[in-house]
């Protein structure tokens, strides 16, 4: 870094910033959770600032879910409209699931939609598109997608989902290995858990809560592994 660049960064990487904090003075690309005003870059969320070579971004510590194409989400059917289901996916707008995205074959207009999904059903779905009003369009055609029959849902802050997954899935794979539960992580902050027995499931709940409260710290995967081992030994 040249002297000039050093002057324009206002924080150290991984410092906590709050909305309105000046992050960078001068020309640089704005990354996630930042905005530009009068040529300077500011934070718009509570988070950890991160400077890279050509951009400055903030890793959010809190945040609601913003639907993106390709996301796997856990949703709840809240209404049936003409030819489509309305699904609550914990975002600012409800998502739409049309019949064509739900069953992979032709259907008649008098088709009874409740036979596929009814109000109150839980689905694992993929966001395939955002329409022109930015309403998410879902699909349940595909492997591991569709109606959920067993298990329970755990909710966490959506901004902490990346931490739960870890680098290349390191965290979640470790948890899967240690607890032997089926875990489906929705990007919208809903986690579907289905274990062989109650004890295993409780273990997952404990671990997920620990991750949520300590999401902003480093070396988390190792600490969680230790934590899991401790609990297991206590049980023995």
């Amino acid at each position, binding site marked *: 870094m040249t002297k000039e660049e050093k002057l324009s960064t206002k924080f150290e990487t991984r410092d906590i910033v709050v909305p309105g904090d000046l992050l960078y003075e001068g020309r640089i690309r704005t990354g996630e959770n930042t905005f530009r005003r009068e040529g300077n870059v500011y934070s718009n969320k509570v988070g950890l600032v991160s400077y890279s070579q050509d951009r400055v971004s903030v890793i959010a510590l809190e945040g609601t879910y913003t639907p993106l194409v390709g996301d796997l989400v856990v949703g709840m059917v809240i209404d049936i409209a003409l030819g489509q289901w309305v699904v609550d996916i914990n975002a600012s707008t409800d998502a739409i699931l049309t019949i064509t995205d739900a069953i992979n074959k032709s259907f008649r207009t008098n088709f009874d939609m409740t036979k596929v999904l009814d109000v109150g059903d839980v689905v694992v779905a993929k966001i395939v598109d955002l329409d022109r009003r930015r309403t998410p369009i879902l699909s349940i055609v595909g492997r591991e997608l569709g109606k959920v029959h067993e298990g329970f849902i755990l909710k966490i802050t959506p901004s902490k989902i990346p931490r739960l997954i870890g680098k290349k899935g390191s965290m979640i794979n470790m948890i899967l290995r240690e607890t032997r539960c089926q875990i489906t992580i929705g990007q919208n902050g809903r986690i579907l858990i289905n274990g062989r027995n109650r004890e295993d499931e409780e273990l997952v709940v404990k671990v997920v809560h620990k991750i949520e409260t300590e999401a902003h710290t*480093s070396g988390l995967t190792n600490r969680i592994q230790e934590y899991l081992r401790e609990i297991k030994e206590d049980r023995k």
Partner: protein
Amino acid sequence: MSKTTKKKTTKRKTSKKWARVDGRKPDELRPLHIESGVIPNADGSAYIEMGRNKIIVGVYGPREMHPKRLSKPNSGVLRCRYHMAPFSVDPRRSPAPSRRDQEISMVITDAIEPALFLERYPRSVIDVYAEIIEADGGTRCASINAAAVALADAGIPMKDLVSSCAAGKYEGKLVLDLGDHEDKKGESDVPVAYLPKIDQVTLLQMEGIMTQEETEKCIELAIEGCKQVYEAQKEALKKKYGMVEGAEEKEEEPDEEETVEEGKKETVEEAEEE
């Protein structure tokens, strides 16, 4: 009881030198305490104690708006509700929303709105509920302070925090952050809400009589107060993460956002094998 006797003695002691009812300096805030993340079921929340004011604020959203006809097609809507608990004042008040509650709700909405990026959430609503548990003058300012912290705690994108503080005239002197007594007995009261980093006033009300010069000084004084409040707000937001902050080793994380996709797929596959 001891409180009242204390007050009397301070007044007597400083009878020659002018002092405020609670012994503060003219430009001194009441003791301020803010806490964030106090309601687990809300998306964001905050609790504020500003003097004897006690206010809890919950933020929900952005979420689907009901009734739908109130939503806007091109932007989100901020909906604030200011409500005084029946036991918050003496004598007890009716829990039904009064005309005053409605007005202050509107005023709070207008004060906070400029700090938000509402255009990012078309057809949605952000709900802010401020419940006054104990009132002691300047509740609208305290509510704004807590609401700003709660909104940031909810992870809602903001241009800046909103800090608020009142200044006024009491016994002929300009004073900062009026308490209930000063509010009622004083000559004038000027609540101000302020975006500290953008340097913009978003709320300016005035009650009572002052000269033009006094009013200008009052606003300046209030803005100074807001800046002090801002520091407390910032601290409250950071404090929530302060507990485990010390043990940081600085590794991992930065590039993990990219690996999310991959991790997700693996999860599904792994789950299937089980």
